[in-house]
């Protein structure tokens, strides 16, 4: 009984929070494979910022990024070894990894997603919103 009540309450809370859609830029990727568990904010990757500077080929062919949000299993160890983000974010092409908060800037608890994707819009929004719903007066 208590369990079902708890699930009901949780689902209601989730549903209350969800419809206030986040307005992040189309194609922003939230990567939260390990960040939350490690006590860091999830990383947010802005596609728009990077495609102004590089063509898709650079990351998706040369660096081996898969076309799947969260599908690359990126860790800080790999980045420091010069893989994935670390191929550029090494202080040579772009700023280095000591700027933790520049990537790890997502709201804690935001699930891995590609923001504004068709799947996300069709099925259900999976993200939490910043703005709280209005309390019933």
């Amino acid at each position, binding site marked *: *009984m208590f369990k*079902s*009540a708890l699930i*009901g309450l949780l*689902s*209601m*809370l989730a*549903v*209350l929070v969800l*419809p*206030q*859609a*986040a*307005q*992040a*830029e*189309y*194609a*922003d990727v*939230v990567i939260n494979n390990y960040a939350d568990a490690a006590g860091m*904010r999830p990383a*947010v990757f*802005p*596609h*728009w*910022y990077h*495609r*102004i*500077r*590089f*063509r*898709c*080929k650079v990351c*998706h*062919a*040369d660096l081996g990024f898969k*076309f799947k*949000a969260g599908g690359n299993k990126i860790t800080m160890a790999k980045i420091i070894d010069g893989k994935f983000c670390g*191929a*550029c974010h090494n202080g040579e092409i772009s700023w280095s990894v000591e700027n933790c*908060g*520049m*990537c790890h*800037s*997502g*709201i804690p608890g*935001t699930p891995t997603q*590609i*923001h*504004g*994707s*068709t*799947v996300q819009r*069709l099925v259900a929004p999976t*993200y939490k919103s*910043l703005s709280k*719903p*209005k309390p*019933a*007066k």
Partner: protein
Amino acid sequence: MKIKYFFLSVLVAATFTVVGGNAQAAQAPIKQVKSAKGKVSGANVFNRLLKKEKQRNAPPPEDGIHDPANDGTHVLQPPLIAYDGLPKTEFGNYVDWVKALNDGLLKPRYDRFDPTVEPLVMDLDIVREVKASMPDVVFPHKPHTQWLHCSNCHPKIFIPQRKANVINMSAILLGQKCGVCHGKVSFPITTKSCTKCHSKPKPADWKPPKSEASLKNPWR
């Protein structure tokens, strides 16, 4: 707008909630309706269920996925500053990336070290006939090869052979085939973007194929 979202949320919540919180959820809309102007129901509005973006290209601290409590968030560039002067569209980032590249407004690198490397562009259009009444699809290799490398699509996503690929809109909308990029990063599938792919009109004498059910109908 917020009230509408709240209505929606409460409605959905009421259907989803099993036990707890149900009473609270059910009470809320009654009070909201009473507070509406005059005697007319506030529910008679256009596009009650249509989700509209409140703000296009919101700056990172206000976009709902970046944490404003994080100092780094405020250092990030707001997209609108970067988009200044770029051609606009009605979907995605609201920027026509392909046109911006062709007009020379953007010079993204093809090699991560060397800005002078030119992409391997192939100019080949593939026409895919569409069974139904939508215009046929023209796939232009040119804008794709300007951004991508052959190996990004071939042979894993698209078999480079005629008639070897079965593509339909359901698959695309669910993120397969063209949907691996379109609908995630490159321009999305909206009612405003159909004709970007479905761009070759059917011949003048074209008629929609009749369905089996209609052909076998003994009463026709």
